């Protein structure tokens, strides 16, 4: 049986009851929330709090580690630095040694005869020189086999390499090399003299210099005073000894052909002697000096 509310009518009491129930429900949920919130908030707070503490710990650890590292690195540097300088010194010393060895090997060029071992034998380098001027280099690549043979070379074709090899290569290799050196140095020297004459004293020549590949026959006409009235001289130099840089036969004639005065004859004879005894370009240098001297005396 429903108990009627004496104060409200049924409809109102229903609304009233339900509404009341609703209000109570709301209250309850609200109060539950309120009671939960501080709980969750507290839980969250607790969680965050622990996190903060962990991070703080981590930070402190890292800071400590950094300090420690710095300290140890400083200690290391203090220990290591003397070692590193030692390494650098060793390297410098090695480099210096290498440079020295390279320089010595290059200096061998100045001895005129040097060589390098190859896989087959040896590659000999002949550096020619004349009067202290280093001239061309020539190579002979030898294969060390029985019989000893020349693999390839850069010797000019008019040097009698085959002849020298036929005579000495198999029996006395030293003699072979020295003989070849002689020929090549003499050839270089003759070539140097002819080149110098053509380049430095062209003013004194009245015609082109005739020469041959071995530079062992030179023929030219020259005047002592280029602008002057004197007759030009004709010179013909023969170098029959291929191992020499001075001619074996010299003929100087006067182009005029007429009977020469004694002074000209003396000059001609003296020139012949000069060409026989001094290198060609030096003779012409003395001509040029004399010419300058004469000019200065005249003026």
């Amino acid at each position, binding site marked *: 049986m429903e108990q009627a509310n004496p104060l409200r009518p049924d409809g109102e009491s229903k609304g009233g009851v339900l509404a009341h129930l609703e209000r109570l429900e709301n209250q309850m949920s609200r109060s539950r929330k309120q009671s939960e919130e501080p709980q969750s908030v507290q839980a969250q707070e607790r969680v965050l709090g622990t996190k903060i503490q962990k991070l703080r710990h981590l930070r402190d650890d890292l800071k400590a580690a950094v300090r420690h590292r710095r300290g140890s690195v400083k200690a290391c540097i203090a220990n290591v630095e003397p070692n590193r300088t030692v390494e650098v010194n060793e390297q410098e010393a090695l480099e210096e040694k290498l440079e020295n060895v*390279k320089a010595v*090997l*290059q200096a*061998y060029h100045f001895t005129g005869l*040097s060589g*390098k071992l*190859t896989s087959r034998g040896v*590659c000999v*380098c002949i550096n020619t020189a004349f009067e202290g001027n280093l001239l061309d280099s020539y*190579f002979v*690549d030898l294969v060390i086999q029985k019989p000893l043979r020349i693999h*390839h*070379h*850069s010797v000019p*074709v*008019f040097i009698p390499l085959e002849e020298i090899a036929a005579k000495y290569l198999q029996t006395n290799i030293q003699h072979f090399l020295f003989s070849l050196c002689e020929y090549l140095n003499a050839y270089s020297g003759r070539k140097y003299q002819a080149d110098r004459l053509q380049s430095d004293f062209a003013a004194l020549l009245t015609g082109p210099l*005739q020469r*041959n*590949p*071995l530079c*062992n*026959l030179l*023929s030219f006409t020259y005047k002592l005073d280029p602008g002057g009235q004197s007759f030009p001289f004709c010179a013909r130099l*023969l170098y*029959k*000894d*291929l191992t020499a840089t001075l001619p074996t036969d010299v003929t100087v004639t006067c182009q005029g052909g007429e009977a020469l005065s004694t002074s000209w004859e003396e000059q001609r004879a003296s020139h012949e002697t000069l060409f026989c005894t001094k290198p060609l370009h030096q003779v012409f240098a003395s001509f040029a000096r004399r010419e300058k001297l004469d000019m200065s005396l005249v003026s």
Partner: protein
Amino acid sequence: MDETVAEFIKRTILKIPLNELTTILKAWDFLSENQLQTVNFRQRKESVVQHLIHLCEEKRASLNDAALLDIIYTQFHQHQKVWDVFQMSKGPGEDVDLFDMKQFKNSFKKILQRALKNVTVSFRETEENAVWIRIAWGTQYTKPNQYKPTYVVYYSQTPYAFKSSSTLRRNTPLLGQALTIASKHHQIVKMDLRSRYLDSLKAIVFKQYNQTFETHNSTTPLQERSLGLDINMDSRIIHENIVEKERVQRITQETFGDYPQPQLEFAQYKLETKFKSDLNGSILAEREEPLRCLIKFSSPHLLEALKSLAPAALFSRIQKLLCYSASHSQGTQDLSSYVPLYTRC
């Protein structure tokens, strides 16, 4: 100016391609700069030629000048001719060679002119101690034929001369004689060497084909050439291949070297060999007399072709073949002594 000379100059200039004309005319040095400047080289070729002939007439060109122009044209177009190689020799104990160019030229000309009244001889010296000689041949009764000359390139103070192959064979002995006497040698022999490329012949005969030498200064590291292997292949196969390929490459390098090979177009070998057979009682193997054959290799550039055979793995077969031919061959001794393959066998 003689009509024949004018015609000769005209035909020579007509042969010259327009782009080379100024270079060759400058080398000829017969027409002056001023004269050359008056010529319009952009005209049609016939007009240019006409103008040039006119200038030559003004300057009175002689047969010698015309011959010189011909020499210069041939020097620029060396490859159009085939060159033979001649080797001279002196007697034992000869004096030192005091070569005098003037004397040589006079002597050479005199010998030819004494034998054949009608002959035109012209000379042109070059920088490498060589003299180019042009000979136009006539007979006792006919004038020299300027259109079929013979060229000789002689390197003074060496035993070698190169002669252009010509159809007029009958004058070769006389030419040989003139050359030998004028250069103070005793004998002349034709070598079994022939090519269009004078430079290559020179390199072979003067032994100048390999001019790289090991010195302490040159620190060229061994170049690692790519062997062209397929990296997708099984690495075990690659390893086996590498060993073999390296061996082949090493042998090729030792034989041919690193330098550019002289250009030869063919090599011919006479081969005498006995036939080997596995089967007993083969007819060919039972022959008493050896088989005689002629083997000819030809190529636009024979030595480079042989050099590239090795990487193509045909090397061992060729080597065997050439080994036989080297030991049994009777011809072309000079070539076989040059090509290093053969001396190694």
